[in-house]
């Protein structure tokens, strides 16, 4: 399980409890400029994870850590597929994060609202 929060212009992903051990990582900080979106996606758990580069993978029990799939680095921390949220990134080591959260709908809304506020504060070339 992970906890998402926004501090200033940064998305903070806090890996909770023992998942820190399984995932070999306790915290990720992603500038909002590099966040492309968030989606509740329980079905992603049934896709191929690719090659485990560090962490833990017991199919059907836990997927946690760093995986490499189709040329992309993906960070996983999921036990229960129902809570899986996909955060798509740009210009980061990870192409995407797949993390289990307590309330996927609220997590997606949090990320989208933060992205919107960030974009509104910086009118781009449109």
């Amino acid at each position, binding site marked *: 399980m992970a906890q998402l929060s926004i501090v200033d212009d940064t998305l903070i992903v806090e890996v909770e409890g023992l998942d820190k051990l399984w995932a070999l990582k306790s915290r990720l900080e992603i500038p909002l400029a590099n966040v492309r979106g968030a989606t*509740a996606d329980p*079905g992603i758990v049934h896709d191929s994870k690719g090659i485990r580069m560090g962490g833990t993978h017991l199919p059907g029990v836990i997927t946690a850590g760093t995986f490499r*799939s189709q040329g992309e680095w993906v960070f996983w921390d999921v036990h229960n597929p129902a809570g899986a949220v*996909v955060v798509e990134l740009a210009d980061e080591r990870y192409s*995407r994060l797949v993390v289990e959260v307590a309330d996927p709908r609220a997590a997606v809304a949090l990320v*989208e609202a933060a992205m919107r506020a960030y974009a509104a504060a910086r009118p781009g070339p449109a």
Partner: protein
Amino acid sequence: MGRPRAFDEDEAVEAAARLFAAHGFEGTSVDDLVGALGVHRGSLYKVFGSKRGLYLAALRRHLDRDVLPLTRAVAEAAHLPAALAQAAAAYDSGPAAGLLLLSAAERAPLDPDTAALVEEGLAALEAAFTGVLGEDAPPPLAEALAATVLGVRLRGRATEGRPGAAAVLALADRLTR
């Protein structure tokens, strides 16, 4: 970077628009999209960023391909009854028929970007009626006519095949008498 996309983005967006029109945003899962679009999940996220990103692209496409061409045709109608009949028959139709109405009800209250696209589609219909009515008509009249068309279209979704033209033509008859 620079790797060619492994799928036709426009075809994928159209397939997504059909799904969203049939099942709504919440009712369409990423599994549904991956299956219908025939793309890898990773490619879908890479290109569109999120399910919401794909939804906005689908609604944009529906506006550009179906809604706005129809409103342009309505604006060129010879008289009000013709404009109303045309709008009642075909507003928000096409491959993703109903996506605009569904977006207005489901996602627009939650998502400002969806709301802006919905507003664009509704404003285009109002502007078309304003053009047909002429400068002298009060602006709320065009809004009322657009609202009538929306209502007729919505009614038609509940009762398949129910003709909407009779209702709008009766209204036009009363207005132009």
